């Protein structure tokens, strides 16, 4: 059942990497220890599998609960681990994606897969529980809108509050604002370009300015292509973060979950011929921001709020899906 659910939601997170959801504090054992020790570790730590690593921290085997039961039945629990461990260990790499991870669980039916770096050294472990937890964390940012959608859209006072932090947003006090008041697709992006310029003038790191601009461009283009109305871009500079909010008053999005999928688009043909409407807009916004909430309902406009942390992301010349 869990597998089914995970399989469905994985399509929303093609860029989720093993390193983001693996458990980094792995319990391991040396090959020379006895199976009895593994049994004790499993009992105390309440785990059902233990990787075996050599003196160079490389994974050379794995012992599961099943191996321990067999050892108890066969009366060889005092034997060294290396004699009975499974030697052909299937492992994951930190850069593997969710799809690969799930395919391993399906193919082998094991309960856990050790994660190793390029040198074969143990760096983490992934169980189904870790995947679920990782997904829930990710889902949190997207699905937040379900609970708050109604109050935001139906109560004007919420329209003046942050979707993420719920603080009152003083739009007049925005550090940057831009009225998206044109309908010509050729002009799309002038707001985002101006915002990038503004951020650079404010001495914001160029890589962050780039991330903000890309995500804002996508939001701005969406307003022009899809909303059928005008809209606004607001940017607030905070000590440790940059907040961007893009709102429109147009047609709205019927199903945000589907719209988040890469490749999904409702753009008409003449727009697609120009290279827009690749169905990458919302996924790009999510990829380039650190937190993103989108609130919408058919006929009631769209509000997108994105937070970009000034510190904490590395290697941001590209998106995480690079």
């Amino acid at each position, binding site marked *: 059942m869990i597998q089914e659910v995970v399989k469905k939601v994985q399509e929303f997170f093609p860029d989720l990497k093993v390193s983001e959801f693996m458990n980094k504090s792995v319990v391991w054992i040396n090959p020379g220890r006895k199976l009895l020790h593994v049994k004790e570790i499993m009992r105390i730590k309440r785990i059902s599998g233990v990787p075996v690593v050599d003196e160079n921290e490389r994974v050379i085997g794995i012992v599961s609960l099943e191996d321990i039961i067999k050892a108890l039945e066969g009366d060889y629990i005092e034997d060294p681990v290396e004699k009975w461990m499974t030697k052909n260990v299937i492992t994951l790499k930190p850069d593997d994606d969710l799809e690969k991870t799930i395919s391993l669980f399906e193919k082998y039916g094991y309960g856990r897969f050790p994660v190793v770096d390029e040198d074969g050294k143990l760096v983490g472990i992934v169980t189904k529980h870790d995947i679920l937890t990782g997904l829930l964390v990710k889902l949190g940012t997207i699905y937040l809108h379900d609970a708050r959608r109604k109050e935001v859209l139906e109560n004007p006072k919420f329209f003046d509050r942050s979707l993420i932090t719920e603080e009152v947003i003083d739009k007049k006090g925005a550090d940057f604002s831009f009225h998206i008041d044109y309908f010509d*697709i*050729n*002009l*799309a*992006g*002038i707001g*985002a*370009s101006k915002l*990038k310029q503004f951020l650079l003038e404010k001495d914001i790191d*160029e890589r962050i300015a*780039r991330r903000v*601009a*890309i995500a804002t*461009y*996508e939001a701005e*283009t969406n307003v022009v292509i899809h909303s059928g109305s005008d809209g606004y871009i607001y940017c607030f500079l905070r000590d440790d973060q940059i907040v961007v909010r893009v709102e429109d008053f147009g047609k709205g999005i019927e199903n945000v979950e589907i719209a988040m999928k890469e490749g999904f688009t409702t753009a008409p043909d003449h727009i697609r011929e*120009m*290279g*827009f409407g*690749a*169905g*990458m*807009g919302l*996924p*790009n916004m999510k*990829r380039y921001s650190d937190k993103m909430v989108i609130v919408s309902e058919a006929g009631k406009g769209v509000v997108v709020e994105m937070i970009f942390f000034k510190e904490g992301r590395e290697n941001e*010349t*590209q*998106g995480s*899906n*690079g």
Partner: protein
Amino acid sequence: MKLKEVMDELGLKYVCGELDKEVVHGYTCDLLSEVMGNAKPDTLWVTVQSHMNIIAVATITGIRGIILCNGHDYDEQTIRKAKEEGITLFKTQENSFVVSGRLYALGLR
């Protein structure tokens, strides 16, 4: 590699912009969101899109220059905007595949 060298090596037709800029990467695609999502800064972009919005995409992404393929022409607005934003424009009769291959051979990645 300098844009001037690329232009000379590939026999590109020069449209506007500085030639002294360095490019390190190449990227070939006509879908704007894909370009923004994947192209790196200091990229030379190979495309058949000629409308003005490619300049916004280039500016935001950090793309230094654009090669327009298949003998297409840039819109006037596009050229004007490129001059404003400092994006170098070239065009060529060759298709995107050939241009990409030659850029790759020159060492762009």
